[in-house]
């Protein structure tokens, strides 16, 4: 490497570091490594087509190391870019290896330059768009749209976004559920019956009616009352169908239920049967 090149290099390094340090403070303001590179490139040359990718890589690396010296945490993609630029730099500095396949350093540098130019072009385009005559600010639509009511039709409206959100909701099942359950505080007898039928098989021993109340129907008095009534009706239904037996020691004593064992014939089992204290 020629010496004057090395000297120039040192001088530039100092300048780069100064730029980099000025930028470090503001690292949060960058939208990713490409944005940072574009800013560095702009510091280098106004015409992006004439920037030196080698210098740019050097500036970027200086920036990253300065940020690290200052113990500023950089997002991983900044470091990935740094590693890649370091590698690109070595590729640009070393004579090309005729054996190596894949893109040459020059090609990679050209693509990076293209990316920077493209990003800047889009940024400019965005600014131009925003600066156009805009509807509702510079240009106006009819302020008094006329709707002469002759025929009134109902049109249901839903946007694609509504549709996508609905699907997302269905697929993830994480809809917002309010704490107060706005369900009618009535448990239907059918519901209680279905539930009881499926549970009764497991109840060989006398079990309190209350143990069969569904979760969520046990605390709130209104709901509990409805659940007890429905479950009681369902119990009677099961007894009538010969699927269960029911027992009560005395009037207003707890009601107990168990599955009807075929051939047990113990239909009038005494109230002394030990019952589970399975109160929920």
């Amino acid at each position, binding site marked *: 490497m020629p010496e004057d090149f090395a000297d120039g290099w040192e001088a530039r390094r100092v300048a780069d570091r100064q730029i980099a340090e000025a930028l470090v403070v503001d690292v949060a303001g960058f939208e990713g490594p490409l944005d940072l590179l574009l800013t560095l490139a702009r510091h280098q040359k106004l015409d992006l087509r004439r920037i030196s990718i080698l210098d740019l890589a050097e500036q970027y690396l200086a920036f990253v190391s300065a940020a690290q010296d200052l113990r500023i945490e950089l997002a991983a993609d900044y470091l990935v870019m740094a590693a890649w630029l370091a590698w690109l730099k070595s590729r640009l500095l070393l004579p090309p290896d005729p054996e190596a396949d894949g893109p040459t350093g020059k090609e990679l540098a050209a693509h990076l330059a293209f990316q920077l130019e493209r990003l800047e072009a889009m940024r400019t385009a965005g600014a131009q768009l925003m600066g156009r005559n805009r509807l509702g600010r510079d240009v106006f639509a009819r302020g008094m749209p006329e709707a002469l009511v002759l025929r009134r039709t109902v049109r249901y409206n839903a946007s694609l976004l509504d549709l996508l959100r609905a699907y997302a909701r269905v697929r993830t099942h994480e809809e917002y559920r309010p704490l107060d359950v706005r369900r009618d505080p009535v448990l239907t007898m059918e519901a209680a019956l279905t539930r009881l039928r499926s549970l009764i098989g497991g109840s060989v021993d006398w079990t309190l009616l209350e143990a069969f109340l569904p*979760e969520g129907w046990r605390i709130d008095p209104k709901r509990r009352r409805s659940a007890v009534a429905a479950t009681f009706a369902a119990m009677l239904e099961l007894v009538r169908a010969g699927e269960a037996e029911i027992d009560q020691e005395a009037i207003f004593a707890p009601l107990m239920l168990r599955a009807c064992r075929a051939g047990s014939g113990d239909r009038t089992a005494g109230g002394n049967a030990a019952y589970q204290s399975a109160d929920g």
Partner: protein
Amino acid sequence: MADRTDPPQAFGRAVEQEMGQLFEDLPLAEQERMVEAILFATAEPQTLRDLCARLPEGTDVGHALALLERRYQGRGVHLVQIGEAWAFRTAPDLGHLMSREAVDLRRLSRAAIETLAIVAYHQPVTRAEIEEIRGVSVSRGTLDLLMELDWIRLGRRRMTPGRPVTFVTTTGFLDHFGLESARDLPGVQELREAGLLDNRSAPGMPLSLEDDEDPDRPAQDPLFDPDDAV
């Protein structure tokens, strides 16, 4: 612009009036197009005073209105005076063309939009499958509404026992939602990446069997409550 009328302006106006003798007033044609634009864009009929407040000093609003009224004579839209105010109105003989404007927009119920989404993503899909995916039963009315809206229609019968009918989406559906084909609907992953899907909880969770907004929810849901097993 000159729409403020605080005292300093009154002084300014006097000056401007004098200036008006020095500088040319706005050409009448320009005044006319200004009035035209204002009357087109405002939501309320404008009185002479309203118009004056918006227009540059020295505008002869009355003259501009007269020119404008003549210009729109016999056109599809007329300039009409309503009390003290002015507005554009459709020519009375063309009112019938606007009859289609009278539509009531209503939002689709949550059950309906979810059902529609499921049909869109899973078509051809049977009612039982829709219910399985939503975790709640689908009322006949919901499907009827969607069919009436011409967003879904019956597809082929499924060649399974019972030969259930299937539902598919229509061209009307694509039209309404601005899709070129149902294939263009984004996948779950893409929805999440577009930020449409809140991924606080992992997908693939068991179907929730409760939907408190759905009255005809199957009655067996408490069965699946593990706490409840005796």
